[in-house]
């Protein structure tokens, strides 16, 4: 019989209870967002400048995180990389999850031909290999940040759609949905007010996972030369381009990996530890 639950580590503030883990995760995410915004003003060197005589240089004064495979300053490259990783991935995951979830709920509530058409179309999208899709888009419109965001969003929308639709279909069969329909409510109310509150937790968990996938796919695209163009580099690209430093234990390969890990883990921890509104149960 399991008894002790992790409820003891929660504190309360302004009518919400939150856990320490969630706060730390939120602070890490906030810090990276600040870095992303302020990066151009705080980097010590321009990201394209070769400032070290040696490559894969160690951490030392002036080059706090060592140098990369061309002798460029790693600190500047990681700070600027935050811009692209946080900015592009977050924007893409927001678009993907928002459109996927809204479409999924609408399809579940409306049913009929709209559901069929949307589901088949997005299944077809799902069947296109993501890297190949990226290649085609870059070949067609060239590589730019907006194009990259949209491409990533389009690639991950079908998954979010499938997930949200599967959840919403279950909710849709409940009697309170029938009650709302007979009341004469429109679709926007049905999906926003009746369904969404019931599926928000799994949807957020899905959001966290999808964010990690997008970060990884972005790195993959950059590696193929389809993502950001040099000398710009996101964290994934930094890991890839410095992979040769692994035998030398160069900070150039470890630091961006840690950066990716800190961000993706924080996003997931935050989602698992969102503040909860305290409702007085004993009243």
């Amino acid at each position, binding site marked *: 019989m399991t008894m002790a639950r992790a409820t003891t580590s929660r504190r309360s503030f302004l009518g919400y209870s939150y856990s320490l883990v969630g706060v730390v995760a939120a602070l890490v995410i906030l810090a990276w967002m600040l870095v992303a915004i302020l990066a151009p003003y705080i980097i010590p060197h321009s990201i394209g400048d070769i400032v070290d005589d040696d490559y894969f240089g160690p951490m030392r004064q002036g080059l706090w995180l060592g140098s990369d495979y061309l002798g460029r300053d790693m600190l500047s490259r990681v700070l600027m990389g935050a811009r692209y990783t946080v900015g592009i991935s977050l924007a893409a995951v927001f678009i993907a999850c928002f459109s996927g979830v809204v479409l999924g709920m609408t399809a579940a509530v409306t049913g009929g031909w709209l559901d069929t058409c949307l589901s088949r179309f997005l299944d077809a999208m799902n069947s296109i290999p993501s890297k190949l899709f990226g290649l085609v888009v870059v070949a067609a419109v060239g590589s730019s940040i907006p194009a990259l965001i949209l491409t990533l969003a389009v690639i991950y929308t079908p998954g979010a759609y499938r997930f949200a639709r599967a959840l919403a279909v279950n909710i849709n069969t409940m009697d309170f949905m029938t009650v709302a329909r007979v009341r004469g409510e429109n679709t926007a109310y049905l999906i926003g007010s009746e369904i969404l509150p019931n599926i*928000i937790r799994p949807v957020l968990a899905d959001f966290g996972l999808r964010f990690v996938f997008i970060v990884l796919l972005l790195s993959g695209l950059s590696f193929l030369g389809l993502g950001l163009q040099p000398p710009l580099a996101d964290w994934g690209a930094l890991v890839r381009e410095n992979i040769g430093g692994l035998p030398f234990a160069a900070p150039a390969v470890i630091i961006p990996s840690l950066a990716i890990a800190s961000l993706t883990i924080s996003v997931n921890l935050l989602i698992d530890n969102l503040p909860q509104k305290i409702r007085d149960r004993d009243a």
Partner: protein
Amino acid sequence: MTNLVEVRDLRIEATTDAGRIVEIIKGVSLDIPDGEIVALIGESGSGKTTVALSLMGYARPGCRITGGEINVNGKNMAALSEKQRARLRGTDIAYVPQSAAASFNPSSTIMEQVIEVTRIHNLMPPERARQRAVELFKALSLPDPEGIGARYPHQVSGGQLQRLAAAMALIGDPKLVIFDEPTTALDVTTQIDVLKAFKSVMRAGGIAGIYVSHDLAVVAQIADHIVVLKGGEVQEAGTTARMLSAAQHPYTRELLAAFEPKPRQTHADGDAGAKPLLRIDNVTAGYGAVRENGLPLIRAVDSVSLVVETGRNLGIIGESGCGKSTLARVIAGIHPAATGNIVFDGKQLERAAGKRSQDQLREMQIVFQYADTALNPAKPVEDIISRPLAFYHQLDRQARSKRVDELLDMVRLPRTLRYRRPSELSGGQKQRVNFARALAAGPKLIICDEITSALDTVVAAAVIELLKELQRELSLSYIFISHDLSVVEAICDEIMVMYNGERVEQITPDKLKAPTHPYSKLLFSSVPKLDPTWLDGLVRDPELVSQYGHR
């Protein structure tokens, strides 16, 4: 006579989400003599199932047996190890669950599941077990005892499944059988067969039993002793005859009183002021592909006509599957009729709710059976009740808040409940919120679809009483759908009996004693009475049973 079971000062605790520890069973003591059946009755949440399960040494997740002794056949179940308990379960003590339909594995045959106990405990060779199972099927008067074991659970009816669950419990020759509300989910006509089968098998085998129920009339038929529980404590205990005739405790009396239908306010016959509020002519609706003549393949409602007058109530009664719920959905426009007219308040209504005007939707509200699924679990009570206020009446925030208070008062709920979510309410409270939401719209007609069948007797009686009061205050009309005759009788001016999608008879409550249609006769005679000799003395016309009973 020795006692097979002796429970002394049993205490069970549960831990809530917030980490608080709540004592849910507070020192219960009871005895079960050899070969007798003891009934545990009480409202939901009184701890009756928890006590029954503790006889197997089992506590549900989150609960713990913290004190007392549970002596079953000389062994203290509370002190045994899990392994020792497992050896006794199925052989010494067996369990018949509330919903047999949910307890059978749909992917293997009934016979395999019935003899599983003998396999687990190595009681007898499979061949012998199959013979024994067939004997039990015969004893439980199941149809086709030789062949029924080869079927899968979805191929037999609910009443049969419940008896098969009893066969499963009895195959290990237990000394004690725990019945957990085994007939609550069944129709009255089916319930009788199941009760009769249980009673004869238990008596023939001299098996002791504990029977958990909230239906006093059912308990009166099967139990030798009755123990009344409330709030985890024994309120009163005694033999069935004494409890029914000379109950001491106020709660027991309340239970008995809830059983007797209150005198209804009777409208003077031929009330001149009554004009039809809702009229339905020859409505047919169903499921499946629409055929050439415009009718659906399976007709759930077949050419039904009815009239509801302003300020009057119509009861619709029939067993499950007779089309009464479909009829409610047809009237509300959730399931559009294939043919027929619906006239509401002098105006022709569209068949589909989507095409009706907002006012028409507002004036006809439907309240569903399961408040659990009819209330959005993610929203507080306040939001649930205030939505119709904002939607139909465009009230602002303050006016809504005030009206929510009034509505909560109306349905006799404390105002502080408004901040809670449905999962934090009891069954009766949920049904009241469900009803308050319908009232918030300001309707003329409320369709109540089995709204009391998920509630226990005392709570259901209170809800019915509430409906009557509100009717007097707000001049409402109800269509009251139920399979429980006593409920319909208590509140309705007219009763329509449905069978197989058709209206078979329409009568007034005072003529209930003399129904003319044979199905009505069978249905009305199947309602259990408090008299303990009722079941044994019941003689039903075998022709009627074979024609209308689903065995």
